Structures are given as structure tokens and as C-alpha cells.
């Protein structure tokens, strides 16, 4: 089989992406799909802020407002932030450890399609009788009472996309454990890889409880079970526990990769080794572990009793210690460095004060008695937007600029990038800082409007204006991307000039088989070491050029996912439409059959021959 890619028509390109198992292409798919959902979630955010811009507003009705906030939260967490981070992990992590590909390329593709179809299913609710309206936490006491099919869309959609995330997590873990290049010991792995590792471990243990919780919800609402119905002996607190057992690790699943991205940026643009590397690794692992022991701090006001509240309060405060270690390590990385203030670095510098602010309010809420005051107020809204926007979204925007040249062999405009940063950064603080005070003044979370005599109008207006600033920032970013793609100026190797880790050592554009020869890693920041020693080629190799084994593309992941997508409609209308059960069975049959085909049909992949590699001179 010929192994070198040729120029293709449009149809062939689409087919290529539908069947790809290449981690770099899957990364682009994650980025595109996650970006789309990010825009949808952003529009929902704007609708919220328009509604709250003035008192007694009737821009949207109360019911629609509930649907919008629910979908905003769910979309941003599950369909935007996590997939985009998965995109960067896919693009960068295998290159960073010098792997040929991920451990399970087929499952990698499957994970993506599951996420996408789950997301589409969830968003179809808008057009099929109303979106979910019980908040992104979907507490059972609310969600069991919710009429229509909104909650069913939520439970089934998240079930499908959650399965994709779970698969992706296992895939990353095995890749990092088994496929590191020679010399890449655990304590030489870049922080991006370490955080991917720990976040994936969190996914491994956090998603099963969510799966179970969602199944209970599905069974209760669609199949006549009684897990949460207290008249039948059920207990709604079980949902809260299961949701937060997942939900708290979930925020670390989001923030740890963000930490990883910023760790890369600080070292890269301070042109200095990351300060306290081993303590950074330790802190990452510790945060990951403690993340599982604190979920009940979301439930202080449930009435779990003072003992339970005290235990969870102390555990929560303990997380501030490793996080603080990280902040100081970053500061000391910059200290005395030869700093280049590029766009990614700007985001990183903006991240530190923003995230610290979010962390401090987090510690405030960890004090259970104070939490009784703050619970379900805008203070909470301000807090989690400070950590998620000030941490995760800033990291995503930074990574977009940082890794754009690696993914597309082009450079986003620095000038427009700085405009985006300032609009977004100022808008972000304007929107959310003032919400702390709204919370302290008593404005409850999730209200669809307020009255003019409550004294909340000015602050809400300021908050809404801030949101417009953020929107302008994002629009400039989109323009930036369009211009960059249209210009299509190739940037060549080591685009930031000071690359330290392996991913920057690879020739641009990145060959589809990654490194032609497996690199030999000689220390932390191995590419930097080679450059310092005057190695022209940039890398020392661990093996001579030889045949490369590659996996075949496959359409099966797509079909498998379509089966579940169809089955979800069957489950949704169970007991209501006569065709529901046949459709459910049909969908599951499609999935199971395609699994059987995958299992029964041998797929050994193919080899790129040594001669072809030699001719290509670095690959194209």
C-alpha cells in the first residue's frame, strides 16, 4: 500500500476526517467541534446577560431562562471546555513523549464521535420540545418534576458523550504509561503530559459514578424505577452525592490541563527551566487525589451534619496547599527569566491573579458556616467563573495561540491576539468581579429577573457590559483565525524559537507518522538541551530509520456512535410512542453489530516502508 498522502478533493478530505484514527486530525476535530459548542454556549451566556441587564426585563420568559442557564452550563463544561482540552492533549501529548501515535487510535476516534453525537443530541432538545431546565447539576428533586423531554435529552446526551470521555481517558493513560520514547522517564515528562495523565486518571474514576447517576435518572424518568422518589422509598440525596462525586473531580479534570498548558508557557517564554519541577508533579498528583475527597463541600447546606461538614471543609482547604505551591513555582519561573511577552504569555500572566482570586473565594466557601451564607447566591457564580474562565478558558485561549503553529503550521496574528486578550480579560473581570458583591447583597443564583427597588440594577448592568467586551474579544479571535487560515503562511520548525520540549523538535508540517525515528530523550526539556549543545538536527535518535507500523483508518467508530444516537431516541420516547422500543433495539443492534465487525475483522494496519521514508526527507 502506498504510504504517502496525496492531494485530495473535498469529498475525499471529508471521508478522511470521518474515518481518521490519527491523533493530530482527531485533535483538529475536537478543537472544531468544541469551538462550535463554545460559541453556542457563549451565545447562551449573552442571552443570560441581556436578560439580567435591566430590572423587570421580559426579554426571555422564566422557563426559557431556566433552559438557557442549564444549557449554558452543561454545554460549556461537557461540550466546550473538556473537548477543547482533549483536542490539545491529542495534538501535543503524543508528540511530547515521542510516541508514534496514541495507544488505541481506534478508540480515540470513537471517543471523539461519541462526544460529538452526545453533544448534538443534547442540543437537539432545543428543537424537539424544549431544553433541560433543572440547572447543569440537574438535582433529582427538580429534574424528576420537569415536564417534557428536556431532562431526558440531558441524561441521554451526557451518557453518550461521557462514554466518549471515559474512553479517551483510558487511551491517554495507556499512551503515557506504555509509549514514552526511550529516556523519557516519568520525571522527565513535561507538565502538559503529567497533567494529562492525572486528569485522565480522574476521568477514569470520576465518570463511572456519573454514568450510574445518569442511568438512575434515565431509569427513573423513562423506565419506571424509583431511585429518587421519596414516596417509593427513594432518596434524592443519592443523586447529589453521585453528581458531585463526579462533579468535583470534573473541575480538576478541567483545571489540571490548564495548569499544564501554563506551565509550558511560563517555561517557554521565560526561557528558563520550570521552577520546582518535581514539586509541580507532586502538587498535580496531590490535587488529583484530594479532588476525590471533597465532593460534599457542594452539599454543606443539605444537612449532612456538623461532623461530615467539618471533615469535608478541612479536606477542601487542604487543596489550597498544592495549588499554592504551583502558583509560587510559576512566579519563580518568571523570576529572573528572559521574558518574552507573547500572546500566550499574556494569558499566562493574566491567569495568575485571576485564578488566585477564584481560589481565595473557594477557600472562603470551604468554611462551612460561611457557605451557609454564600450558598446559591451570585457569590458562587462569581467564584466558579473566576476559576473556570480565569483558569480554564484563559488556558484554552493561550493554548490556541501557542499550539496553533504546531497543529496548522501557521501563526495566529500577535497583534489581533493582544486585542483579543485585553478585551476578553477586562470584560471577564468586569462581568464577574462585581458578581461577588451582588451575591453578598443577596442576589440568588439562577433568578431570571429582579426588581428595580432591590438595588441590583447598576451592578448587573456593569456585568452585562463586561460580557459584551468578552464577546468582542472572541469575535476578534474568530477574525484572527479566518485571516490566518486565508493567508496560510507556513512558519517552519520551532515556531516560537525557544521550544524546550519534544513537540517543538518535530519538522513542520508534522508528518502523519510523527517522528521518523523514535527520539532519545536525554533530560527534562530535551529539545532545549540538544539546542544548547549545538545539535543542528535538534534531536538525538534512539533507532535507525526502519519501517513504521501504522493503523488503518476506520469508519466503524462513526457507525457505532450513530447506533447509540438512534438508540437514545428510542429510550427518550419509551412508553410514549409505539416505535420507541423498536428504535431502541435497532440502535443498540447497530452499535453491537459494528462492535462485532470490529472484533471479528482482523486489522493489522500497514507499514510505511523505509525507502519511502528516506525519499521523503523528513516526510510530508
Amino acid at each position, binding site marked *: 500500500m502506498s504510504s504517502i498522502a496525496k492531494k485530495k478533493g473535498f469529498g475525499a478530505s471529508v471521508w478522511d476526517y470521518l474515518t481518521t484514527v490519527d491523533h493530530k486530525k482527531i485533535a483538529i476535530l475536537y478543537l472544531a467541534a468544541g469551538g462550535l459548542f463554545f460559541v453556542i454556549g457563549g451565545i447562551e451566556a449573552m442571552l443570560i446577560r441581556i436578560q439580567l441587564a435591566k430590572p423587570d426585563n421580559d426579554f426571555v420568559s422564566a422557563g426559557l431562562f431556566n433552559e438557557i442557564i442549564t444549557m449554558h452550563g452543561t454545554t460549556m463544561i461537557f461540550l466546550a471546555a473538556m473537548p477543547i482540552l482533549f483536542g490539545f492533549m491529542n495534538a501535543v501529548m503524543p508528540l511530547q513523549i515521542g510516541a508514534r501515535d496514541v495507544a488505541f487510535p481506534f478508540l480515540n476516534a470513537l471517543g471523539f464521535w461519541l462526544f460529538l453525537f452526545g453533544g448534538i443530541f443534547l442540543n437537539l432538545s432545543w428543537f424537539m420540545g424544549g431544553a433541560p431546565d433543572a440547572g447543569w447539576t440537574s438535582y433529582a428533586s427538580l429534574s424528576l418534576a420537569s415536564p417534557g423531554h428536556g431532562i431526558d435529552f440531558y441524561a441521554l446526551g451526557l451518557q453518550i458523550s461521557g462514554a466518549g470521555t471515559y474512553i479517551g481517558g483510558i487511551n491517554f493513560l495507556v499512551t503515557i*504509561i506504555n509509549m514514552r520514547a526511550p529516556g523519557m522517564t516519568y520525571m522527565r515528562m513535561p507538565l502538559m503530559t503529567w497533567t494529562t495523565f492525572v486528569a485522565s*486518571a480522574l476521568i*477514569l*474514576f470520576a465518570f463511572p*459514578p456519573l454514568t450510574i447517576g445518569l442511568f438512575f435518572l434515565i431509569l427513573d424518568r423513562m423506565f419506571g424505577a424509583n431511585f429518587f422518589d421519596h414516596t417509593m422509598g427513594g*432518596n434524592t*440525596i*443519592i443523586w447529589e*452525592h453521585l453528581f458531585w*462525586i463526579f462533579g468535583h473531580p470534573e473541575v480538576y479534570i478541567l483545571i489540571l490541563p490548564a495548569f499544564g498548558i501554563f506551565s509550558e508557557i511560563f517555561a517557554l517564554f521565560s526561557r528558563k527551566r520550570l521552577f520546582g519541577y518535581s514539586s509541580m508533579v507532586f502538587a498535580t498528583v496531590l490535587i488529583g487525589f484530594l479532588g*476525590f*475527597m471533597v465532593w*460534599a463541600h457542594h452539599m454543606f447546606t*443539605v*444537612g*449532612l*451534619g456538623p461532623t*461530615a461538614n467539618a471533615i469535608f471543609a478541612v479536606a477542601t482547604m487542604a487543596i489550597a496547599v498544592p495549588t499554592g505551591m504551583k502558583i509560587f513555582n510559576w512566579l519563580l519561573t518568571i523570576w529572573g527569566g528572559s521574558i518574552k511577552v507573547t500572546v500566550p504569555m499574556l494569558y499566562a500572566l493574566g491567569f495568575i491573579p485571576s485564578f488566585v482570586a477564584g481560589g481565595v473565594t473557594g477557600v472562603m466557601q470551604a468554611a462551612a458556616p460561611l457557605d451557609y451564607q454564600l450558598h446559591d447566591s451570585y457569590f458562587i457564580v462569581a467564584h466558579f467563573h473566576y476559576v473556570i474562565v480565569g483558569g480554564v478558558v484563559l488556558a484554552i485561549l493561550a493554548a490556541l495561540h501557542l499550539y496553533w503553529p504546531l497543529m496548522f503550521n501557521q501563526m495566529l496574528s500577535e497583534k489581533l491576539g493582544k486585542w483579543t486578550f485585553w478585551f476578553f480579560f477586562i470584560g471577564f473581570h468586569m462581568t464577574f468581579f462585581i458578581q461577588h458583591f451582588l451575591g453578598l447583597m443577596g442576589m440568588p443564583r439562577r433568578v431570571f429577573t429582579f426588581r428595580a427597588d432591590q438595588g441590583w440594577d447598576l451592578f448587573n448592568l456593569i456585568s452585562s457590559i463586561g460580557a459584551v467586551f468578552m464577546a468582542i474579544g472572541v469575535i476578534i479571535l474568530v477574525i484572527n483565525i479566518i485571516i490566518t487560515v486565508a493567508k496560510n503562511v507556513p512558519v517552519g520548525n520551532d515556531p516560537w524559537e525557544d521550544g524546550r520540549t519534544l513537540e517543538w523538535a518535530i519538522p513542520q508540517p508534522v508528518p502523519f507518522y510523527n517522528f521518523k525515528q523514535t527520539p532519545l530523550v536525554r533530560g527534562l526539556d530535551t529539545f532545549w538541551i540538544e539546542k544548547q549543545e549545538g545539535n543542528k538536527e535538534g534531536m538525538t535518535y534512539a533507532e535507525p530509520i*526502519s*519501517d513504521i*507500523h501504522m493503523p488503518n483508518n476506520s469508519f466503524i467508530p462513526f457507525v457505532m456512535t450513530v447506533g447509540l444516537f438512534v438508540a437514545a431516541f428510542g429510550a427518550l420516547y419509551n412508553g410514549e410512542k409505539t416505535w420507541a422500543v423498536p428504535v431502541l433495539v435497532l440502535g443498540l443492534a447497530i452499535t453491537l453489530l459494528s462492535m462485532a465487525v470490529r472484533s471479528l475483522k482482523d486489522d*493489522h*494496519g500497514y507499514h510505511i516502508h523505509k525507502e519511502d521514508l528516506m525519499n521523503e526527507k523528513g516526510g510530508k
Partner: protein
Amino acid sequence: MSHDAQVFVKSQTEFEYSKRKRKEAMRSQITSFAIMIFLTLIAFSAVAAGFSKYYIAPIILLLAAVQVVLQLYYFMHMNEKNHGIAAFFLYTGALFAFTFILTFLTIIWWG
């Protein structure tokens, strides 16, 4: 991926040796199976005999734990090398599992 698999021809002695090793390992598998059956019998008969539940519950839980350890270490070969990471993740999972069950038994608000 396949090119790193080397064909290694064992000498007759090596072959005999590893065969005997496997046989010995199999013997210990059967021993552990016998123990598992025995533990199950104890657990069932303790319940059938109708002792006090405060007495039975901890005992049968302990028996279950022992049985699972045998299952993991002998039947699933966790006693062989190269299982460090598997064990690490399994035990981490088990620790979280224990925490979840503990909280569901104590703090779901009403008994």
C-alpha cells in the same frame, strides 16, 4: 508495532523448565480455588446456622475480601511482575469505592 516482537527459541531444558514452572503455578491455582470454595461454604453455612448478625456480618465480609484477594492475585495473576501499575489503579479505585460506600451509609441525610 509488530517488529519489536522477537522470536526466541527456547532450548529443550529451558522449555522443560518453564513447562514445569507453569504446572506448579497451576497447582497453586487449584489450591486457591479449593480455599475459595471452602470460604464460600463457611460464609453460607454461617448464615444458614443463624448466628447473631453482628457476629456474622464482619466475618462474611472478611471472607469475601480474602476470596477477592485470592481471585486477584492467583486467578488474575497479580502476583506476577509487571502488574504494579494495574495494582496501583485498582487499589486507588478500591479506596475511592470504599469512601463512596462509607458516605452512602452515613450521610444521605436520613437512615
